[in-house]
């Protein structure tokens, strides 16, 4: 309590506020331009199976866009096409005005697309903190001799990485677990850690693959709040795959419904829910 009134503390806040404003201006200037992600007529087939068929989407800055559809509808394949795990057979993927079709995964990540995985993929044997630090590798701009001789630059950068990672962990509420092994965290925390790790890339677009999978109603509600907080705090755009219709209606500004690789409907959650084709696919399908 006493600390909060000290001049040093106030000064610190002033500096932070200034920085935040600068960032906000930067974001606003970006916002006015192209959509964050645009996919044009993307196709991907495996053998004879059309995993995605003529898929197009436009995601504007700051949106939360949902991808829904029954199992095998091609949702994760879309993620894998965006992040470069597969190269699409046809079509174009444009991110912040740049064509990223067929770029390798690490390039796509470096350009500012972070992602999580359906079946969580953490660096299980490493500490929670290291999981996040590794993802901010782009800020580690020292070279090998500097690392070996522990030059000033190395020390400064490592400190910065550490602070940044701790800051992110604080935001997701895992700061107390920083030194624990990632695999020892409970399931819900692992999901949060995966999001924190993706945020360490300073992404402009975050792809969430079924973030509420395996969660009960209460936990999903908490997740909805959490994702919204992340969006508002970092001013990012989110594309998420989700099965839980309540999560989608609560969270998404727009959504796209897929079935067997084909786009069934696009619109706000309310519009989509009343679309007869969607109802048929869902009631006649497996969910």
């Amino acid at each position, binding site marked *: 309590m006493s600390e909060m009134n000290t001049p040093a503390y106030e000064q610190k806040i002033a500096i932070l506020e200034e920085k935040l404003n600068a960032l906000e201006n930067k974001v606003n200037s970006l916002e006015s331009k192209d959509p964050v992600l645009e996919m044009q007529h993307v196709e991907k087939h495996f053998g004879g199976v059309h995993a995605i068929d003529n898929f197009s989407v436009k995601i504007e800055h700051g949106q939360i866009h949902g991808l829904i559809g029954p199992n095998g509808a091609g949702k*994760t394949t879309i*993620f*894998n096409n965006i992040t470069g795990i597969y190269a699409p057979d046809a079509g174009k993927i444009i991110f912040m005005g740049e064509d990223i079709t067929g770029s390798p995964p690490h390039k796509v990540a470096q350009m500012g697309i972070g992602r999580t*995985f359906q079946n969580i993929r953490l660096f299980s044997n490493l500490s929670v903190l290291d999981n996040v630090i590794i993802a901010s590798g782009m800020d580690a701009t020292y070279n090998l001799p500097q690392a070996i001789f522990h030059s000033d630059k190395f020390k400064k950068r490592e400190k910065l990485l550490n602070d940044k990672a701790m800051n992110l962990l604080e935001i997701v509420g895992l700061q107390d677990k920083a030194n624990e092994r990632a695999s020892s965290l409970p399931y819900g925390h692992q999901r949060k850690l995966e999001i924190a790790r993706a945020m360490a890339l300073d992404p402009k677009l975050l792809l969430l693959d079924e973030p509420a999978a395996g969660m009960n109603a209460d936990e999903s509600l908490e997740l909805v709040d959490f994702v919204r907080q992340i969006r508002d705090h970092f001013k990012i755009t989110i594309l998420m795959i989700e099965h839980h219709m309540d999560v989608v209606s609560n969270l998404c500004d727009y959504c796209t419904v897929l079935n067997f690789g084909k786009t069934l409907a696009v619109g706000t959650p309310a519009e989509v829910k009343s679309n007869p084709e969607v109802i048929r696919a869902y009631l006649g399908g497996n969910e």
Partner: protein
Amino acid sequence: MFLQQFITGISIGGIYALLATGYSLIYSLLDFSNWAHGEFAMLGAYFAIVFANMVGLPFMLAALLGVCGGALISFLCEKLVYRHIRSTGAPNMFLMIGAMGLSTIFQQVANLIFTGQYRSFKFKLPVSTIEIAGAYLGVLDLISLVLTAVILVFLIYLINKTKFGLNVRAIACNANAARVLGVRVDRSIASVFLLAGSLAGVAGILYGMKYNVFPTMGNIGLKAFVASVVGGLGSVPGAIVGSLLLGVLETFVSGYISSSLRDFFSFALLIVLLLVKPSGLFGVDVQDKA
């Protein structure tokens, strides 16, 4: 000369194929290269030597016991070691390291019991070469060729036409799905180890008859490993084609270029081939799904 070399090459390739198909079968089921596989051949050959030369059993019976010995050791490795490693959920690399350890153990044990001495079967074939179209062909080569051909045809029949083969192919596709559908996965895997071990035993005895039996002869397993990689890991027909290719290449390099460069050419072929076809001739490229 050419025909003679060719037949020799094919017959050596046949011996490789007996081992390489074992590598492929096990790889297709468990996604790891059973580094100890060559040692099953060596142990099979030693079992046969013991029964034929020391106990004095008739050669055919001793050979049969040798084959059983190879199969038994292979089975025990699966039952006692590999199954345990699999049950810990360790990465596949650990299975391979375990196999490497087993290989070292078998080589050392053979060396301690039998010493490094080269041993040969007392059994001799009545005619050692016959002349066909001006080429002198070793009777042993021909016998080994015919025997391998019969065994390999039987193996392909077993995999493609029987219930056992169907189970094995199902596990290779998706072990968990196979288990759900009622395939007894562990039992099938154990049977494959028995089968692969007995093929290795045959290979070891044939190799021992052609050359000698010695503790490090398991290194032919390495050649078979190369052959199965050339053919594409996990593919039985690929393993056979790869083995024949390698056998012929080796004999021709030894015959026309230099026998001391033989291994260089085999491995160079392997590396170049993999650069052109990263999954071997018949291999399937599996992607890690995110």
